[in-house]
Each structure stands twice: as structure tokens, then as C-alpha cells.
């Protein structure tokens, strides 16, 4: 199929304009109420992680052994667990490690995957083939199995969970980054720089990379959610950690046996995970809308 190049660009130009215009009218994205609510939840959780003692009324380690398995009440909003710990305080304090798992594994996975994808996409050729086959190999092994193998082999610790989740996320980031880099590589502003005589590295660093990052950013945002979920899945499969202050996934998976007798132990951390991941996803969606070039209107 041939197309009149000139007309194609006339079109591109016009379509862009129309899309931009219609985009402005039509892409409201997630309704703003939800976005604000999501933002508030995330901010609240971050505050919890940073200053849990401001919010929680008990120390998360305090075991009130004569108050075990008490339902929600005025003194224990979310009830107490089988140790007699205040579930609300657990949830508040647990946010720290949960966020750590979420953010760190996204950071590590995104960085490694991003670098692989960028090299592969920008250099192309044999490097690309080799790296992509490697990514293919990683892709054939379901992420959680990889994570399971790593966590099982290295033993359960916060760091290993992060590592496991991060590695299993690498192929996704690498693919997206590669695709993005390859598409940006052909843009005319990149050719423009080349025609000016900028070095390949300069082009990569100053044009290709910055313009390739936004989908990765969106993906990373959404990845925080999946990382937290993956972490809790590992806890469930018996690779959780035992810590004085457990993360949400650990509380949830350890409390699950009590669901029939003390629903509150795992319901609240479960809700915390769900709400936080939900908020992160809402924000990610919003971010996707926002970073959409179509939205880049005046």
C-alpha cells in the first residue's frame, strides 16, 4: 500500500489537530472525583509509611494477650489479631514495607528492564536479537514461578521478595521500552538531530530517551500495584517474612486462617492492599491519559 507521503503528513497534522481537539473534549479520563480520592489515599498511605507513629494509636508490636481476636471497637478500630495486636496499627505500620516492596521492585525491575529494552531498541541488530531472545526466555517462565524459585532459593526476606518480583517484571519493561525506543528512533526530530551531526549517544540521551520514558512511567505506576500483589502472593505461598512489623501481604496471608472466626484480621489489610493498588491504578490511568501525546494540546 502506498500513500502519498505529503498528504499523509497533511493528514497526520490535521488528524493530530482534530484528535487534539476531540481529545480535549472527549478524553475526560477517569472522573476527577476518583482521581482525587485515589490521590488522597496514596498520600495518606505515604504519610502512614513515613510517620506511622503519628497515626497508629498502638505500637504494632504490642501484644495484648488478654485482648486477642477482638472485633472492631472504639479502642481498636480494626479489632485485634491473634497476638492481641491492634490491627489498625498493623495496617498503618505495615504500609512501610508494602510500599517498599512496591516501589523498590518497580525501581529495580524498571531500571533493568528499561536498560535492556533501550539498548536492544537503540542499537538493534545482533545486540537486539540476543537481548530479545533472553527476554523471550524470561517470558516463557511465568513471573511468579521465577519469583518463587528465587525467593525459595534465597530464603524469604524483604530484599529477596523485592528481587524476585523485580526480576519477574523485567521482560515487560524491556519490551515496552524497546518498542517505544524503536518508534521514537524513526521520528523526524531524531533524524533532524542526526542531520545536524549530533552523536548517536547524544541523540539517544537527549531526544530518544526522554521521549520514550512516559509509557514506562505509566507502566511503573501500575507496576507498583502488581508488585505489592505479587509480594503478597509470595507470602501466601509460604515465602513471606517474619518481621516484627509485617507488611500488608504478610498480615493478610497469615490472618486468612482466621477469616471465619475473626474476619477483621485479614479483611482490613486486604482492603488496604486493594484500595492502595486501586488508587495507584487509577492514578496510572490518569497519568496515561495525561502523557498521551493527544493530550499535549495548548
Amino acid at each position, binding site marked *: *500500500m*502506498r*500513500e*502519498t*507521503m*505529503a*498528504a*499523509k*503528513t*497533511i*493528514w*497526520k*497534522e*490535521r*488528524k*493530530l*489537530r482534530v484528535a487534539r481537539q*476531540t481529545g*480535549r*473534549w*472527549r478524553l*475526560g479520563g477517569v472522573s476527577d472525583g476518583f482521581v482525587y480520592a485515589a490521590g488522597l489515599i496514596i498520600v495518606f498511605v505515604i504519610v502512614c509509611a513515613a510517620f506511622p507513629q503519628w497515626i497508629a494509636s498502638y505500637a504494632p508490636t504490642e501484644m495484648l494477650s488478654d485482648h486477642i481476636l477482638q472485633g472492631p471497637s472504639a479502642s481498636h478500630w480494626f479489632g485485634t489479631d491473634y497476638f492481641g495486636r491492634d490491627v489498625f496499627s498493623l495496617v498503618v505500620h505495615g504500609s512501610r514495607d508494602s510500599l517498599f516492596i512496591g516501589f523498590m521492585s518497580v525501581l529495580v525491575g524498571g531500571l533493568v528492564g528499561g536498560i535492556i529494552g533501550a539498548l536492544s531498541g537503540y542499537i538493534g541488530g545482533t545486540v537486539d536479537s540476543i537481548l530479545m531472545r533472553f527476554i523471550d526466555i524470561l517470558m516463557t517462565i511465568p513471573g511468579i514461578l521465577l519469583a518463587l524459585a528465587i525467593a525459595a532459593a534465597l530464603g524469604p526476606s524483604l530484599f529477596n521478595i523485592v528481587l524476585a518480583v523485580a526480576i519477574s517484571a523485567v521482560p515487560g519493561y524491556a519490551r515496552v521500552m524497546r518498542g517505544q525506543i524503536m518508534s521514537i528512533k524513526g*521520528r*523526524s*526530530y531524531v*533524524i*533532524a*538531530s*542526526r*542531520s*545536524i*551531526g*549530533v*552523536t548517536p549517544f*547524544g541523540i539517544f540521551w537527549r*531526544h530518544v530517551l*526522554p*521521549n520514550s520514558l512516559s509509557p514506562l512511567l505509566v507502566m511503573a505506576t501500575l507496576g507498583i500495584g502488581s508488585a505489592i500483589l505479587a509480594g503478597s502472593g509470595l507470602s501466601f505461598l509460604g515465602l513471606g517474612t517474619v518481621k516484627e512489623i509485617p507488611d500488608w501481604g504478610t498480615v493478610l496471608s497469615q490472618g486468612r486462617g482466621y477469616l471465619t472466626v475473626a474476619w477483621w484480621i485479614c479483611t482490613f489489610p486486604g482492603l488496604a492492599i486493594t484500595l492502595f493498588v486501586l488508587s495507584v491504578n487509577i492514578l496510572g490511568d490518569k497519568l496515561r491519559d495525561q502523557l498521551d*501525546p493527544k493530550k*499535549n*494540546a*495548548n
Partner: protein
Amino acid sequence: MSSLLEIEHLSVDFHTKKGLLQALDNVSLTIRAGETVCLVGESGSGKTITSKAIMRLIDYENGRIAQGQIRLQGIDLTVLSQQELRSLRGKKMAMVFQEPMSAFDPVYTIGYQLIEIIMEHDRKTRKQAWAHAVHLLNRVGIPEPEIRMKQYPGELSGGMLQRAMIAMALSCGPELLIADEPTTALDVTIQSQILQLLQELKTEFNMSILLITHDLGIAAEVADRIVVMYAGRVVEQAVTEELFELPLHPYTRGLLRSVATLDTDRSSKLFSIPGAIPSLSALPSGCLFHPRCPHATDQCKNEAPPLAAKDEREVACWHSEQLAASDEWHITELSMKGQITANAVAKATEVKEELTNVSAVDGAKVSSHGVQVKNSPKSNETITETVQNKQDLFRVDGIRKYYPVKKSFPGRTGASIRAVDDVSFSIRQGETFGLVGESGSGKSTLGRLLMQLERPTSGQVWFQDRELTRLGNSELRSVRRDMQMIFQDPYGSLDPRWNVGDIIGEPLAVHEGLYGKAKQERVEELLSAVGLSPSLVTRFPHEFSGGQRQRIGIARAIALQPQFILADEAVSALDVSVQSQIVNLLQDLQRKLDTTYLFIAHGLHIVRHISDRIGVMYLGKLVEIAPSDELFRHPAHPYTRGLVASIPNPNPKNRRELITVQGEIPSPAKPPSGCRFHTRCPLATSRCREEAPELTAISTGHYAACHYPA
């Protein structure tokens, strides 16, 4: 003639996040049975909205008819339900869209999509519908319609698709055909074929046509009446001849004057309406056109003129009568006889826009940094002369570029696309070399080879005395400061994340190591040299209009005062008036900097205007090279003749048969034997089929590759 469609006082609003936006305001027009009405106006003037309002398609885009009536054969469309409208759409009124490639559903066959509409409106069996569809395809000139029926949209060329689109629109015998820029996306050759087809079909099917176009040439060729829109309003309407004879609105007049024709004097500047169409959310007060109007008065600023009828025609201007009576007003006189002086242009374009006029900066501070200013603008003749004596800047020798076709069989060397096939020519120091040809003929590829953005398959490129094809990458990088590029797509060629200062400053930083204040100063100079306010350095590309963006691209290209600039379709994506602004700017800069241009374009009149010499490409080969005027006056190659003849002529008194070059350009993967043009050439003989003609001189400076040059 009775009126088929009557639009009265139509206003259309869009619901947007930022509130209500009025896209059409008090639009009235009528189309009589059997009549062709053209809707013209710059981009964004509301042409498409009008057409969609008629079909009531705006309902799906958050649009609403706020006021007014649209009557089709007396039925008021504005009050019908979607259900009732559906029985009219496609049946009584049909539409043809601008881009055929995206107007078809890519996952169904052409046949399916044709039959779908037929069965929707007519009580026909599948078989009858199929037969009818085949008949229609045949009628619109699609060869082998039975096969096409089973093909998917992606398998047809743009021209074919547009024909199929027309067939689809005609399938239920509509009374009104709305065609929204049906040829903008197509080559000139195909464009004239399509226009011709529409003309024939109109009488055959006894329909009325509402044709939307931004090309006045087309309007002149086909319209009975012309309606001019500006910013959602009708500013003028008249019978075609009268409008071209005597435009009453300054905007119409401006549009007419912006059109470069084959007759315009090449030494003069192209006329352009200054500024740009306002955005709907920031409409000016009074007459919407007043900020761009050289004749605007206080009344224009404060009061909106009504659309007043004046013997059969209508115009919305306070001063139309007195202006039309003035001497200078007559267009044909002015443009055709080439009496627009640079001064007149300067006067007409002296406006309050941030786009400071080009000539205003002439000789201003640009000189301080060594931009060479030639204060005596030479006439065109002299330029051509001096150029002829000058040395070659570029010499291209037997260059080829073959792209391997996607191989499904590894190891086997498959066929390749011969994008550029054995081309030799040279570009002289200081001249503008134009390159024309249909889409896919290899123009851009040739340009990229010159710039060494791609390495040729074989052949050499000499730049001054260096053989570029031998240089290593790092050597090439230093040569690049002498060759720059202006891109087709003004939006895509600017990094959206960089501000204007950095974009323009990039070559300075790379080659001259300029940073910070020094760079900023230079950037500001460059901005004013291209007619932009220096205060815009910190803005980002998306904050500019298409024309302004192209100026930024130009500023970047001239930053290092290169010897050579490649402008690949640099103005194709722009509105006519903006096109003129950019072309003028390029010419001014050339005069000042003594730059050499390779100007690639598909708009032949623009190429004629700017180029000293022109090369015509067809399927990877150069088929003709000649000085600009010579080429248009005495085209030697039948292909060139076809191209020239396909250009719509903005002179309604001088209508002629449009079709010139038949058929479509063959695939460069399997080019025809002998002379590549022989499949479409009316003069082809058996010799042409067997023997490839060489590029030979037929007069001084005029070369053609044809066995039977005219």
C-alpha cells in the same frame, strides 16, 4: 432550479470540558438540485463541521445544533431522531471523506462494506447487492471490480480507495453528495482523475454536490457556486466566475491572491494573508477577520458585519462596496501581471501579529553576527544567470538505493524496492533545485542520500570536493554543519520536550560549542530572522501553530549558515496563506545567506515559484531536468506534461479537460521494463517497452529521458 438543501441560520455548539464552544454561527446556504457548491476557507474555518451538521453526525461528537434549520427537500433534519436520520444517511445524502485510507473499516472487504450499505437501504438480496456493487466499482473506474470486492482496504492504493468510497456513496443513489476534501490526500494526477469522475457522476446520477476544499484551483474547476467560510461563519458567497472576477470580502481576496499559479511572476513575492485563523475559544470582537485585515477600521473591530445580500451574492464586510470600487482591488490585474511589489506586500502584511513580517527584519540586526546580507535583491533573471556560472555544490553520480523487500525466505536474496535507481545530476552553488514527482517516486530517498542520512546501495555523492559516500561517521558529522534539513512534518520534527531555544540552539551547541547566554542571543536573532518574536525562546513546540513551527524548523536549519538546505515537502502540510509566508521566508533567507536549496514538493506551482531548476522523478529515475520556466513552458517528457496539465487552474473562465495522466504509479519493487513510464504513456511504442531512454540534453540545460521528447 429548486433548492435541494437549505441551511438557515445554523449555529452549532460543542460541549466541552471548558464549557460550550460555538463552532458555527449563523450559517446559511442553499444548494439547488444539480448544483455543485464549494465550501472554501482555511483550516479550522468550520467546513467539516458544516458537512457533519448536515448529516447530523455532530451528535456523536458532543455537538448540538443550537439554532437554525437544515432542510433537505423540505424535511427539517434538525428535528429528526437518529432513527429517522439513519434512513436518510447514505440513502438521500451521502458523504465522501478526505482520507480514503482511514475511511474504510480495515478488517472487512471492500465488497462487504459496499453490500452492507446497499442492503441497509434497498430491499435487495445479497446477490443483487453484489451485482450492484460490482457495477458501481466498474463505473467509478476500478479495474477488475470482482477481484477488488474481495480485497481489504489495505490492499488498494489511495486513489482506488477514493474511487471505492465514491462508489459506496453513490450506491443508493443519493440526492446530495458531500465530499470533504476528497482529493487532498492524493497525488495531483489522481486528484484530477477523481475530480473528473465526480463531475461525470453528478450529471449521470443527477445529484447535487457539496464539495469542501481548501484549494481554490479545484473550486474554480468544478464549482457552480462558492461559499467562503471563516471561523465558523460564512463571509461570502457567489457564483464561481463572479467570485474570481471580483471578490468582495478582503478574506476571499486574500485567499485568491495567495494562490500561486503557473502564471505568477516568479520574481515577485507570494502573497499571504498575515497571521492565522483564530481559535474558537478566543474569537476576536467585531468582524472576526479584522485582526488580519489590512482594511480594518474601528467599526470592524467593534461591530460584526451581517451577511448582506447584494445581487445574487452575499458578503459579510462593512467596507466591501468601497473596497471593490477601488483601483487596487482587482485581483487578476495584480497577480497575473506580477505587479505585486515587495513594498506592497510589506504594506499589506504589516500587522500586529507576533509573526513579524519577514521583510521588516530585512537587514536589521542580522548582519551583526556575520549573516551575509545582500542588500540588492537581484531579479530572478540575474539569479539564474549567476547560478549557471557557479560551481557545482553537489554532484551525484549513478546513485542507487535499493531496499530489500521484507524477506519471508531467509538466505534467498529477495526482490528489492528500487527507491532510487541510477540517478546522476548536480546542484549548483546558490541555486534552488526543485524535485517533483508522484508519491513513491523516490524524492525523499534521494534527498536522504544527498544528506547521507542513508548510505546509497551504489554510486557517489560529491559535496564540493569531498566524496561524502566515502567519509566515516565522525567526518560526516563535521560536514553536516554545511548541510541542513527542513522537514515535511513541522510537528514531528521538533522534539516535544525541548523548548524552542534548545531546539534552535542544538546545532549551535554541537558545532560551535555555544551555551548559555551566547547561545540564547544567537537563538533570539535567528527567531527574529524567521519572523518570530525572540521572546518565544522558552515556549514548547505544541504552543505554536503549524506555520510557526515550520519557522522554528527553518531557524534551526539556518543556525549554522549552512551552504545547503534540503526542504522535503517543507510547506505541504500548511494552509495556502501560510505556505506563501514560508516560501517567501525561504527565498528571503536564500538571498541573504546565499544558501543552496533542494526543494522537494508535490505542489507544482510552489516548486515553479521557488526553483531555478527542476528535476522530475518517476519511479526512482530522473526523467527530466530543466530550468523552472522552461519546464513549465516546454515540458519535454510526457510525464511532465501530464503533471503540469493536472494542476487545477484557478481561473473559472478557462476550464478544460482535467484528466491527463491515466492510471497509477506502479510498484517500485517491480518497475516496468524499458521506459518505466510506458505503462501510462499515451505515446508509448514498442521501443519504449524494451529500451530504457537515457537522460539526454534536448536544449541547453534541458534534459529529458524519453525516446520521443516534445
